């Protein structure tokens, strides 16, 4: 009985710790931008920023979602210095072996790894930008002449820019909408909850001038 009680207390403590870690969205500084390319290619560019604070961490990772393929042109930049990081693809089991992240990933999954110039020291942090091109024939398709982009967004701040010449026809989640400097439709999603936003965006080609 004592053992069960003890295990229960440990489980509750772990749950509480996990919740504490992600509880305050406003304290998270992860943000991401997506630029949708021609939907016939199923490709979109991604740029996401995050801050590493774990003392002793020597490398950072961008995890490739199942179903997506990341192009070999991935780049990582140390935003504190502006210098590029040495970047290459590793397997999930290699990342798990580092012990940097609270949850292990699928050992056979892929991640883009960037090596920091030096390990994060006590009281230090490093801000990193990752830029990648994804191909996702399931999440980004052309259906009946409409571009359809489906994706869950886990960060507090998320931007999605439509390809040039495409006009928004629907979005299922509240978004702020603007034009970017190139005249493309840009949507901003702020996720105030700790869960994911399940986004579906549809667009169609803007009619040509007669």
């Amino acid at each position, binding site marked *: 009985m004592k053992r069960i009680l003890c295990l229960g207390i440990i489980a509750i403590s772990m749950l509480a710790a996990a919740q504490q870690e992600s509880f305050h969205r406003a304290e998270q500084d992860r943000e991401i931008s997506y630029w949708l390319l021609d939907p016939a290619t199923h490709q979109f560019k991604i740029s996401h920023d995050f801050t590493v604070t774990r003392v002793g961490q020597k490398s950072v990772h961008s995890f490739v979602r199942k179903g997506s393929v990341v192009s070999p042109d991935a780049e990582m930049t140390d935003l504190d210095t502006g210098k590029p990081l040495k970047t290459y693809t590793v397997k999930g089991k290699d990342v798990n072996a580092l012990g940097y992240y609270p949850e292990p990933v699928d050992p056979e999954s892929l991640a883009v790894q960037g090596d920091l110039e030096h390990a994060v020291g006590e009281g230090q942090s490093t801000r990193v930008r990752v830029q990648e091109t994804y191909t996702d024939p399931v999440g980004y398709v052309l259906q009946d002449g409409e571009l359809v982009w489906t994706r869950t967004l886990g960060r507090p701040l998320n931007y999605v820019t439509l390809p040039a010449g495409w*006009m*928004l*026809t*629907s*979005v*299922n*989640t*509240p*978004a*702020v*909408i*603007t*034009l970017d400097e190139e005249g493309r*439709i840009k949507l901003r*999603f*702020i996720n105030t909850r700790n869960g994911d936003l399940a986004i579906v965006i549809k667009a169609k080609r*803007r*009619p*040509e*001038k*007669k």
Partner: protein
Amino acid sequence: MNITWLQSFSDASRYGSAADIHAGFKGNLLNVVHSSADMRFRIVAWLLCLIALPTWAADEFTLYELLPPETHQFAITYDVTATQEGAPFFFNPIRPGSVATKERVVERSTGKELKFEVVNGKEAKASGLVPPQTQDKDEFIKVYLPGPVPKNGETRIRIFKTYTDAASYTLTDNKLVFTRPLGIKRNVVVLPKGWELIECASPGIVSTDADGRVRISFLNDRDDQLPVKIVARRLP
């Protein structure tokens, strides 16, 4: 006061616009030049009324159907529920600054037209159905309910009107601009046909109606007003 009887109820497909129930029902009553200070005062008073309204009203929803921006007009459909037991009337504050035409009020359970008139704040206060801080010169739409609001029940009404408001709905640099603080919780704005949404300053869900018009919806989770600004451009 000029009592207006409403006419045929034929446009049930339109949903209402809301927080707006506010700009004059009787265009000629509202088409008055006010000093800017006076207008500011009236708007603040109107906002105070809105804040107090939930005591007597519920389930509010407004639909704004934007007409060609050159006209500065938009059709409003406003749904609201009277909840105060025994109340024979429903008072809806009129937003200063707009001119209203094509007004109609219906009871939603029966679809029947309801009688209404525009009254001032003094008269509305005398009913005990509006907040005591209401100013005497405020304006309200006084809706005659088909009977007192029943105990443990409510009376659902829909108000239709078309507003002309050159301040909040304009054509600027050939772009449609609709700027309006929305006080109620559920709101939908529909663009005119042939216009593309290119800016939306408050988070909205977007869809396209069967007739090609773009529909944007807003849920206001704030205690105050949601600042809505929509910009659209004409399609070729």
